[in-house]
């Protein structure tokens, strides 16, 4: 009898496991069809922490479609999902640095910009110059915000004046520097500081950039993969090369005077996100309708107000949807200034391999 109950238990477990496996393996085909036979389901792959879920819900209500969201926190995950995971997405939110690779590898389809009427509200500078690899913006359109990889310093505790990236190697900053761990941002900034193109694939130039970073590393207290806000705010570091100036400024107005972006003699990396429709998307009309909705001034206001970002929609069209004091934030003016002094990067496979190899070497140097 005991044996029988064991068999029954084991069979139940096997059944439950099988059901579990099968229920997880749902069809990759997106969605049901409406009366006209068009899919009313949209699969999107977007960055976490950039878009208002409330806004997406409103789109679902207005359009009657279902939006299935996959959140990512880096482009590498998106690429893995698109390249190795059998492209199941209709719309993607892509870093400018990767647009070239996406276009060259046929991951995107051309957009019908006449259907994206809200592009007229976008900052003209962004619409005039597309990302590297899609300069004419056949495949992409800017999404809600942009930013810079910049040197941020604590105005009260930073012991020196910072005029260039090289200043971060000053012994006065020993154990006071935080750096992003992104190879593109690190080596791009170092290359730019040395007067080379941030998109250089020359091993000699990347090696020189590595030498500069090795000097700076002696002062580095921490490398941060996401946000350098913590070491700056908790006083561990007085200076950081990072993406977080807008995060700091929108978090609290107490930080407006406490932290500033260093005016350096070279340019800073500008990062912009772009909307793209994947080459496998069948319902391009719905995808375009979604993108058009997402870049409308009202929707962008929801995104930037929720997450604290600098909007890419022109002020006169968006300010009515934003809090009264939104444009008093110093990061907006600073970002407008920096747009004249910035560079865009386009990721190249060989360059990434080379940089990553030097990064491994850099991390092996001077370790305790």
């Amino acid at each position, binding site marked *: 009898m005991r044996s029988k109950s*064991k068999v029954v238990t*084991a069979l139940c477990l096997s059944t439950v496991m099988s059901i579990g496996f099968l229920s997880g393996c749902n069809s990759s085909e997106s969605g049901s069809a409406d009366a006209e036979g068009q899919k009313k389901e949209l699969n999107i792959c977007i960055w976490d922490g950039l878009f208002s879920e409330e806004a997406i819900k409103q789109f679902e209500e207005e359009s009657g479609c279902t939006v299935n969201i996959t959140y990512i926190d880096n482009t590498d995950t998106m690429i893995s999902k698109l390249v190795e995971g059998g492209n199941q997405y209709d719309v993607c939110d892509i870093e400018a640095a990767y647009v070239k690779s996406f276009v*060259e590898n046929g991951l995107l389809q051309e957009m019908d910009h006449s259907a994206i009427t809200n592009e007229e509200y976008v900052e003209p500078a962004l619409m005039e110059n597309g990302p590297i690899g899609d300069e004419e913006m056949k495949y992409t359109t800017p999404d809600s915000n942009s930013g810079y990889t910049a040197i941020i310093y604590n105005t009260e505790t930073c012991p020196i004046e910072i005029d260039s990236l090289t200043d971060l190697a000053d012994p006065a900053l020993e154990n006071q520097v935080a750096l992003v761990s992104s190879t593109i941002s690190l080596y791009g900034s170092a290359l730019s500081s040395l007067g080379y193109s941030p998109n250089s694939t020359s091993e000699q130039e990347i090696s020189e950039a590595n030498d500069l970073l090795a000097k700076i590393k002696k002062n580095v207290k921490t*490398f941060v993969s996401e946000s350098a806000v913590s070491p700056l705010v908790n006083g561990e570091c007085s200076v950081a090369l990072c993406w977080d100036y807008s995060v700091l400024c929108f978090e609290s107005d107490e930080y407006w005077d406490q932290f500033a972006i260093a005016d350096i003699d070279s340019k800073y990396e500008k990062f912009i996100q772009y909307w793209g429709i994947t080459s496998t998307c069948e319902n391009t009309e719905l995808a375009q309708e979604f993108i058009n909705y997402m870049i409308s001034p009202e929707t962008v206001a929801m995104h930037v107000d929720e997450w604290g970002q600098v909007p890419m929609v022109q002020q006169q069209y968006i300010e009515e949807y934003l809090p009264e004091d939104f444009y008093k934030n110093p990061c907006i003016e600073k970002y407008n200034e920096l747009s004249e002094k910035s560079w865009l990067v386009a990721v190249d496979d060989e360059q990434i391999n080379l940089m990553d190899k030097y990064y491994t*070497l850099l991390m092996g140097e001077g370790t305790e």
Partner: protein
Amino acid sequence: MKKSEEKPRPKGRPKKTRRERMTTLIMQAPMTIWAALFIIAPFCLLAFMSFMTKGPLGSIQYTPTLDNYKEILNPVYADVIKQSLVVAGWTTTLTILMGYPLAGFIAKVKSKTSSLLTILLMLPLWVSGLVVLYSFVILLNNSGIINTILMKLHLLKEPLALLYNNFAIVVGMIYMFLPFAVLPMYSSIEKLDPGLIEASKDLGAGPVKTFCKVTLPLTSPGVFAAIILTFIPCIGYYMVTDMLGGGTSLMIGNLIYRQFTISRNWPFGAALSVVLAVIIFLMVFIYTKLGGDLDDLGA
């Protein structure tokens, strides 16, 4: 005498009936299916991938090559593996040195207290490692709880550098892996016959000699198990060095992570993972050759 009693008793284990064999098979099925699908198959896929070539945008080209393994021999990567082994070695040594007395204490106290202490020891394992590490950041940073208290008490004028250094790494590592070390050692010490220690004392041995000649040798299976259970996860674990140490050096875990993400070189990442797996298999093999029991490792 009955006919059945005339038969000689079979040697070894009694032969199972068909029904019993079926029962065993069905009982083992869920775990076997699980292991085959989610452990063996992915590992085979990983090993296969490690012999392939990297394609554009992180894709895999099915052209066999040994280049990924040759690349590991490049001093840049070999140093990272060496560094990981050194950090894992130090963490294991310190964890064992701290864990052994604790295991002995838990084994000696009354049953109820022992259960309570074991639960307390297991508590960190119930919380996500990431949450634990963020808690350490809050605790150890310049404006963190420890520094704030010490400065409020006027014991310090300036905050102590407790975060983003080797001290923070050691604290974090020991905290994460102490339960893995203490539990097998506790199990060994608890099984130790107190009579043997008494006998050693009666024969004139002092506490140190008794420990070295009786206690330690008899509890060594637990110590070996603790070494394995601490060292193995330590080699690939990079979150502590990243979050508490400041990420100023790379561990093999970082390197593998970067190949699968930033570098998008999956075949090389797979080769590194296979090398890590081989190191682990070798450790377990040596452990069994030294007389270690896989049951003590939870196998």
